[in-house]
């Protein structure tokens, strides 16, 4: 089976714009969570978010793209540019049908949609932009990246909330195995606007704390919900052998994947996350002892934390594998979270450092070896990334350092 390598990454995170800034912030335990600045949050029960500072779309994109794009698409286009540049891919050297785009999306372009709904309500239908036909849409990021770089091969979008970020990478891997030589895969989500905010409030899992260091506390006894954020990562994916042949630098490989759906909430049956983990390990031909670190989903909701801790302990043994939640520094980025964790895992391999989980005082009941406060030196060759989406989606991905070249 064709091995699939990550050859480039484009990162936009609340604690760092670009891979170098994000990695430096993450190792330095620098959080990007704060009071919302993009709108006045005073009237809402939750007021903290991980916002990306300093992203001026006009600095990164042609003016022609601005009237037709939501913030999430502008961030996605910039991240895709960076992922291609990082991979030193000459797009013109590929047949357009040999390049595809697979992204995940949790909300689509909510802020754009909000503006158009406000025009519809206040001024009438003739004031709604023609671009609303696609600018809000879940698939818009895949579409705009595809148009910008002339990528006409197999493409798509996955909508499964936080799990979608891994599901998109898995779909990208499938498409490469079926013969497409280059895929941009991953996700960036961004819906920090009033409409996006009330939609998340309705989900009932937002933290109502207004203390940035006490609001999002996965695996802590005081876990009280999550803080949302904006951002994520897009990755350049290629067949390992072909990437080597063109002289690319390999971050690592997407080695295994598994996904399950949880039983109904009141069934009394346990989460099927452990099955997703085992499936991903089997797919990667990896034993639990091969995993050097787990990037946990870290829901920050007590029931979900308990289920995730139980799944990790059951598969690996209590406290037997280092576990980290660097998203304690970004908030939960929905579909963008897991691709960012995958990128983070690859950067951890390169640096020999496991990034920390910040702000939490772990609940002893969970039996996890959490990497707290500061980065931990470690040889990381194989990592497991977990992502769980609202509605019972569980996904797990094994990421492995690329084997030495010949």
């Amino acid at each position, binding site marked *: 089976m064709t091995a699939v390598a990550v050859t480039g990454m484009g990162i936009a995170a609340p604690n760092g714009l670009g891979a170098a800034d994000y990695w430096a912030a993450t190792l330095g335990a620098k959080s990007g969570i704060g009071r919302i600045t993009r709108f006045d949050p005073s009237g809402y029960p939750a007021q903290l978010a991980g916002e990306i500072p300093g992203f001026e779309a006009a600095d990164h994109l*042609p*003016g*022609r*793209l*601005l*009237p*037709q794009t939501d913030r999430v698409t502008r961030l996605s286009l910039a991240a895709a540019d960076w992922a291609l540049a990082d991979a030193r891919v000459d797009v013109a050297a590929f047949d357009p049908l040999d390049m595809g785009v697979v992204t995940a999306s949790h909300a689509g372009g909510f802020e754009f949609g909000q503006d158009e709904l406000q025009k519809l309500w206040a001024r009438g239908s*003739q*004031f709604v*932009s*023609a*671009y609303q*036909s696609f600018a809000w849409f879940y698939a818009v990021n895949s579409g705009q990246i595809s148009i910008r770089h002339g990528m006409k091969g197999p493409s798509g979008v996955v909508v499964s909330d936080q799990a979608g970020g891994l599901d998109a990478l898995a779909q990208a891997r499938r498409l490469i195995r079926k013969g497409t030589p280059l895929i941009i895969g991953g996700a960036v989500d961004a819906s920090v606007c009033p409409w996006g905010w009330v939609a998340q409030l309705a989900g009932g899992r937002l933290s109502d704390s207004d203390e940035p260091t006490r609001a999002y506390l996965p695996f802590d006894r005081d876990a009280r919900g999550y803080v949302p954020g904006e951002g994520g990562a897009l990755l350049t994916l290629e067949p390992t052998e072909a990437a080597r042949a063109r002289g690319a630098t390999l971050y690592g490989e997407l080695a295994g994947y598994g996904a399950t759906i949880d039983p109904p909430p009141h069934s009394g049956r346990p989460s099927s996350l452990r099955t997703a983990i085992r499936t991903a390990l089997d797919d990667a031909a990896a034993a639990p002892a091969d995993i050097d670190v787990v990037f946990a989903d870290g829901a920050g909701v007590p029931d979900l934390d308990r289920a995730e801790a139980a799944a990790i302990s059951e598969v690996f043994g209590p406290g037997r594998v280092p576990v980290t939640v660097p998203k304690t520094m970004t908030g939960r980025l929905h579909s963008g979270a897991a691709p960012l964790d995958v990128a983070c895992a690859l950067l951890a391999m390169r640096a020999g450092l496991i990034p920390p989980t910040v702000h939490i005082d772990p609940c002893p009941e969970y039996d996890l070896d959490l990497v707290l406060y500061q980065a931990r030196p470690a040889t990381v060759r194989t990592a497991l990334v977990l992502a769980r989406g609202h509605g019972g989606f569980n996904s797990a991905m094994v990421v492995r350092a690329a084997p030495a070249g010949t």
Partner: protein
Amino acid sequence: MSEQRFTLDDLKRILVEAAGADEAAPPDDDILDTTFGDLGYESLALLETGGCIEREWGIALDDDTLSDALTPRELIRTVNERLAAARVA
């Protein structure tokens, strides 16, 4: 009803509003007889441009007016014909 006419400057302003500024080639006076297609405005950009003109000038354009074979000169003429008809009516 005013006697105001729709000019190339009005069109250029609306094109930037509806379709964004193109740093490489801002719309200038030479565009009058180049088709919108050749100027790089695709169908949705033209639809949005037409919608902006309709809203701002209080006229209705036919759906088939805005094709990429249209030139700015032809569009300006059509808009002014609609404005004249509206004044008569």
